[in-house]
Structures are given as structure tokens and as C-alpha cells.
């Protein structure tokens, strides 16, 4: 186990290094640089000073080395566009906000999605099944931005049940100000509901056809017991596989939600940074997001083992 952990961590670090490298060169390939805009009206000497200050005057490979060294020491540098903003600050201020939004969306999405999936699988071919299909297609076809605005208009504007914009801060960062989180969470979770409902339905249908379900039936177990004890756990593997994707998506994917509800999260900042070619911030954010993704992948592997005893951590299969 210890050996396994060490190997896993080494692999993760290697992957992160590759990701950082890929991101760096991808960003280099984009024409223009983050200072073009700012330096436009400057005299040549002053411009040169500015480029020097951000280290953009150095050749690419040297900058690559510097960037990598920075990342290794946890120093991503400061924003090129918004003077004074650092990745560290970002992690401190914005990441928790996005994380709560993401966690709430994914949790709600998965819960409701799974319930709908079970419903659809158990009532296959009935109205309920088709209703779930239609609902899930609707949920993925209508952009979350539109959902968000509609929810805002109806529940904050007309009914005044919830505040229009805002997000809990300070001591409420994690567990307070629920009323502020209702609409954004709702608006963002539809995609997950749809995805998980479909996923679970498919995999449950697979499992229902298995012989051991028939064995369970022949024991005289009730339908509910069969679903709970025999079908669900065996249907979870594809659901777990989907998890890292959702986590990766929920950070950058909440861009629109964050923007319409004025939520100071990482998604909004990320898109702005991309548009501004804000190299240092992009590097930092990408590496952090990737790290999160990789960690979730690792957790997923643990979950696999927890769910399916046939899978072992060290060997792929036994």
C-alpha cells in the first residue's frame, strides 16, 4: 500500500509536470502577449522596462525554465493584466467559493439524477421513463445561462423568495447563507441531473439483466431489497467513472452561473484570464485544476475498490 501510494504520487507529479508543460507551450502558441494591450501607448524604452519587469523579454525556453521552477516552489507569479493578483490569492479567495458551488451542484445533481435514473430503469418503457428522457434532454439542451436568468427572474424578481445575486462570504463561506446558494445551485445542477440520470439508467438496465439479480429474485427478496442490495452497488462503476469529469467541469463550467449571480468564484476569473492571455494566472489555475482533477481520479480509484471487490488497487484486475 505504501509503495502503491508513492508510485501514485510520483505518477501524479509527472502528469502535473506534463500538464504544466503542455499548457505553457499552448499559451506560447497564441499570438500576442498579455502586455500588448497595456504597452500600446507606451514609449519604446518604457515598454522595454515593462516587458523586463514581467520577464517577457527573455527567450522562450528560459521563461519555460523559470515558470517550471516557480511552479515547483509553489510560486506562480503575479497576474500580467491585473497588477497585484496572484494565484495564491486566487486559491485563498476564490477557490472555496467555487468549490462550495461546485460541490452543491454536483451533490444535488447526482442525487436527483440518480433518483431519476432509478425511476427510469425500474419503470422502463413507461411514461415515467420517457418523462425522465425528455426532462434530461431539456436539461442539457437549454444552456445554464438561460436557466439561471429565468430562475432569477421568477424566484428572485417576481416571487422574491431568494436574493437576486450574491454568495455567502466570511464565516458563512462554507455553511451559511443557504438562501443565496439555492438559485445558482439549481441553475447549475441540471446538467448533472441529466447526465447522471441517463448514466445510471443505462448501467442499471445492464445489471438488471444479470444472472445474480435473478438469483436474488429466486430468494424471494422484495423488489426494493433487490434494488438496494444487488442492483445499485453493481451499477455504480460507470457513475464513478463519470465523477472526475464532473469535478473538472464544475469549476470552469460554472462560468455563466458565477457571472449572472455575481459569484466571486474561480470560473469567471478563469475565462477572463483566458481572454486576457494572462499567462501566469492561467498556468497557476490550470495546474491547480489539473491537480484537483488528478486527485479526484485517485479518489475514484479508491471508490472503485470500495464498490467492486474484484478490482484491486495494485493490479488492474484479479
Amino acid at each position: 500500500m505504501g509503495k502503491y501510494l508513492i508510485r501514485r504520487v510520483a505518477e501524479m507529479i509527472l502528469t502535473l509536470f506534463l500538464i504544466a508543460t503542455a499548457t505553457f507551450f499552448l499559451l506560447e502558441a497564441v499570438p500576442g502577449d498579455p502586455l500588448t494591450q497595456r504597452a500600446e501607448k507606451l514609449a519604446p524604452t518604457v515598454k522595454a522596462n515593462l516587458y523586463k519587469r514581467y520577464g517577457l523579454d527573455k527567450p522562450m525556453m528560459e521563461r519555460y525554465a523559470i515558470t517550471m521552477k516557480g511552479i515547483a516552489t509553489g510560486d506562480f507569479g503575479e497576474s500580467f493584466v491585473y497588477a497585484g493578483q496572484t494565484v495564491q490569492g486566487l486559491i485563498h479567495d476564490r477557490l472555496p467559493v467555487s468549490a462550495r458551488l461546485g460541490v452543491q451542484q454536483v451533490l444535488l445533481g447526482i442525487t436527483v439524477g440518480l433518483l431519476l435514473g432509478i425511476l427510469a430503469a425500474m419503470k422502463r418503457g413507461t411514461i415515467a421513463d420517457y418523462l425522465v428522457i425528455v426532462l434530461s434532454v431539456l436539461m442539457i439542451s437549454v444552456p445554464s445561462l438561460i436557466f439561471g436568468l429565468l430562475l432569477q427572474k421568477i424566484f428572485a424578481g417576481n416571487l422574491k423568495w431568494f436574493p437576486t445575486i450574491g454568495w455567502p462570504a466570511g464565516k458563512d463561506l462554507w455553511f451559511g447563507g443557504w438562501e443565496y446558494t439555492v438559485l445558482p445551485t439549481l441553475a447549475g445542477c441540471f446538467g448533472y441531473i441529466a447526465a447522471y440520470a441517463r448514466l445510471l439508467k443505462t448501467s442499471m438496465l445492464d445489471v438488471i439483466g444479470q444472472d445474480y439479480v435473478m438469483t436474488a429474485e429466486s430468494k424471494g427478496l422484495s423488489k426494493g431489497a433487490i434494488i438496494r442490495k444487488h442492483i445499485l452497488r453493481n451499477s455504480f462503476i460507470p457513475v464513478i467513472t463519470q465523477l472526475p469529469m464532473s469535478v473538472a467541469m464544475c469549476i470552469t463550467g460554472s462560468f455563466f452561473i458565477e457571472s449572472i449571480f455575481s459569484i466571486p468564484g474561480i470560473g469567471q476569473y478563469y475565462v477572463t484570464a483566458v481572454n486576457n492571455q494572462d499567462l501566469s494566472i492561467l498556468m497557476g489555475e490550470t495546474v491547480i485544476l489539473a491537480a484537483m482533477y488528478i486527485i479526484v481520479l485517485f479518489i475514484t480509484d479508491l471508490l472503485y475498490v470500495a464498490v467492486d471487490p474484484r478490482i484491486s488497487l495494485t493490479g488492474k484486475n484479479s
Partner: protein
Amino acid sequence: SSGKTEVATAGDTAGTSSTPDATASNDTTKDSGDSVQELNLRATAFGNNYDVQDMGWRWMMAECYEGLLRDVGGADGDKFELAGAESIDVSEDGLTYTFHLRQNAKWSDGKPVTANDYKYGWDRLLDPNKGYSYAAFIFNVVGAEEYYNGKGSLDDVAIKALDDYTFEVKLKVADPTFESKLVATPLYPTRQDIAEAAGDNWGKDWKLSVYNGPYILSDLVEDNKMVWTKNPNYWDAANVKLEKVNWFDIAEDATAATMFDNGQLDVINGSGDYLKKYDEEASAGKIQSLSTQYPGTVMLGYEFKNGGESGLMKNVNIRKAISYSINRDEMVGAVYGRYTPAYGLIAPAITFNEKSYRAQTEEPISAEYKEYAGDKAKLQELFQKGLDELGVKTPISDVKIVLLTSGSSTQNQTEREYLKQSIEQNLGIKVELNTVGDSSLFTSERDAFHFDIMITGWWSDYNDPLDYLDIFRTGVYHSYGLYSNKDYDALLDSLTGLKDTTKRFEVYQQLENKLLLEDCAAAPLYYSDNHFYIQNWVKDFNTSSFGASQEVYHTSISGK
């Protein structure tokens, strides 16, 4: 419970809060004196730059900081009021300016605002190592340009603090526009001790700043909310009525409209279809409306270096044909639903001799435009003439020009489609769009000369027509297609030291005519403006062109 909730955005003023004054916006029984002096405003982005010398964020700085003069908006353009200065002495020759500073002006930490603060700010502006782009505002100061370019030293710059409350500046040549530049934030004072203590972080971290304006920036969460509170140390604090100003970062117009309709926002900046809706409400007396001109002109720029991708932009007739093929009236109505069609360069918001410059002179191309307007045959003839002059044999229908645009909003999109189609329909040529998402890519495309025409514009920094005319001087900005005309430059130079206003006015006229009518250096499309809709309980809300676009210095709430 929400009362105890700590929330980054207090969107609860009308939403979930149970405090009576928040929900009862139509509660007439309340005495006006009871109203909470708190104003809720919308912004679409926070500037993230707290260094006045950088002028990064004018609308905030104009309220939280203060310079020698304050720009105050009015019905007929902007006026200057003394602010940090109590009086200004100008020498006979117009070269020496002596500012007598207000002795009761204080920073938010209680320290007095001194002449040295101004000197430090101005010195900083010129510091070649800092690279402030607005340094050119004071290049006319003796020794300034040399110092900035590394050829002189700071000691030779004629900026002096004669005593704590007397600040003196010497100019190289007399400059009637100098005064109008004084309202610009780069010429605001900066506290040396604090700025130097902050070092590299000066202007980056708002918590390190001190303020000398009516309000203090007291809280800020990026992409979310900013809070100003009244500055108790402000010299005119007695006349500042608002205790608190909340700025919400609201990205979507629809969200802002929802909040405004709910009374969660006190002022909204109308645009698109919302203009119509709120105009109706305003005429029904439900809300107040405030619309003013704004010193900005949007135009088509031509590529002068190579004549563009097509090589045709060197010819004035071709440029004119393109310019005249656009029906500005229709465009303004169809694309924006606001703004004023532009046939000149200088926007109506610019005043000269206390009156709108535009009101005093014809727009240069309005007459010639009318000759061609809507007449396809004549326009194409003009274009053909240009082709002939260039010796280009390509039939007009095979001509293809590239229009460079950026931005992804619906308005951006509609705008470029409108332009493309107008030109195509009227001239019978092809217009290809070169569209980039954001402005830094726009800059790199532009600098690579991948266009014939582009959408560009100028938003004035100080209140003088010269600010507009100067942008077309040879080699000044890249942004206008590298137009270069020696005669034009010479004419601009003749203004240096010219104090006679009538003479200056004449030269301005000549310059604008030469630029637009003779050379067609750009095709102006429209002049910018502001449309604010204000809740009835808000009093004395104002707007200005060179200060704060949403001026809340004297604003108060009553009857909410």
C-alpha cells in the same frame, strides 16, 4: 436569519431581509429623513487598479480621490470646479501656474493634503521606470519630457511645492488646454510615505490606499461587490449625504433589470431594448431619467500603411465611398437604439469656450454625405473613380476588403454585420470579416495589418477638441491606421502656445475638415452618450464626462 448572514453581496435589500425599510419601497408614510442613506449601483467590472497615476479606473478615482479641479457634469457639457485647489494663479505669459491648496483638505487617515503630495504624484507620473501612459499630459512642463525619456533629471523638472499649500508648475509654452487636463486622475496627489511603504504593491492592493475624496473604498470583492463609505475626513463632508454606496458587479443586463425593477438597484444604465422600456416608465413618472452626451466617437479606421489587404485604402475616393455608404441614422437606430450619428470627429460632449464645440460648427462631412447618401450609383461611381485613379482594373464586384472587428456581444455582432451588409449592398463589393474575440488579439491582428478597415474609436481624456485631433498626428497611435499627413502635423504644431481662442477655434475647424473631408482619414459613425434611469427616491444623481460617470458626491436618498 439573513440579518446575521455575512454575505458578499447584500442583494437582500428587497429580497429576504425583514427590515421594513428594505421591502417597502413604496412606503409613503416614511419621512424622507428616515431613509437610509445608502445607494445601490451597478458596474460590469471593477478596475483592479488603485494607482491614480494610471487612470485605470476613472469613475472610482474621481469619487474617492480628489485633484486640483473637479469635473462637474451639466446640461451643456462639463464644467470645472475648484476642488483640491482653492485658487489658481496663472502668470501673464500663461507659463507659470500657481495652485493655492485648500488647507482643510485631509486624507482619510487624517493627514492634510499638501503640495508635496501633488509634487510626488506628478513626479511619479513622469518616472521613466514606472511607464505611466498618461505622462504625456504634462510633457509641456519644463524638463518633464526629457526626464521621462531618460535625457534629463528630475531636478530639472519645473514642478515645485513652494510650501505646504502652494504648488507651482512651469510650462514650456502656454497651453490653454492645460487646465482641462487638471481634472484627470494622473494629476491627482499621491502620498509619498504610503506609496513608498507599499512599494511594488502600490495601486494593486486597495487596502494599502488612502483617500482624499468624498468616499472611501471600504470593501471590495472582485467579480462581486464594492462598497464605498462616506469619508469623515473629507473637507466638504457636510455636503456628502450618502453613508454608503454599494456597487454590484452585474454581468447580465437582464439581471440588472430584474434588480432595478425590484428596487434593489437605484440607478441603471440603459441600453438596447431596455431604453424603450425605461423611457416609458420615466415618462409615466415612475422613475427619473438622465441622458447626456459622452465624449466618445466610434469610427471606421483605414489601413494607411499598405492600403490594406486590398491595397485600395490609399485612395481617398475609395475611403469616402466606404464612409458614405453607411447610413448612420439607420445604423444607430437598428444596431444600438441610442447614440447620435456622427459626421464629425469631435463629440458634442466636448466643450470649447464653455459651449459644446459641435454646436459651434458644422460637422465636416454632413453635407458631402448627403450628396451620396443612399445613392448606390453615385457611390459606386465614386468607388470606381478611386479604382481608376489607382489604376486597378479589377471590376468593382470582384473587389474584396477586410473589416477587422472584435468583441462577442450581440451588439458587436450586429454592428459588424450591419457594416458589412451596408457596404456590400451600396458599393457592390465584398466585405470579409476578420473577427477576433478580445482586444489583445485585435491589437495583434491590427499590428499585423490584416485588415482594410476596422472599427475603432476615441474616448477623450480631457475636455478640449485638441485631444481628438491629436490622435491623428503622425506616429502617435497605431490605433488609427497609421494616418500620416505633414500638413496636418504642421497645422497641429501651429497650435502650440496659441492662446487666442478664436484663432484656435479656426485651426480646429481646419484640422477637422482636413482630416475628414479632404483626407477621409476615418469614417465617424456615432457619438457616444449616457442613459441613466434613476429611482424616484434618489436625489441629485449626476453624470460627468471626465470625472465620475456616475457622480454621487451630492446624491441623497429621500422618501424610499
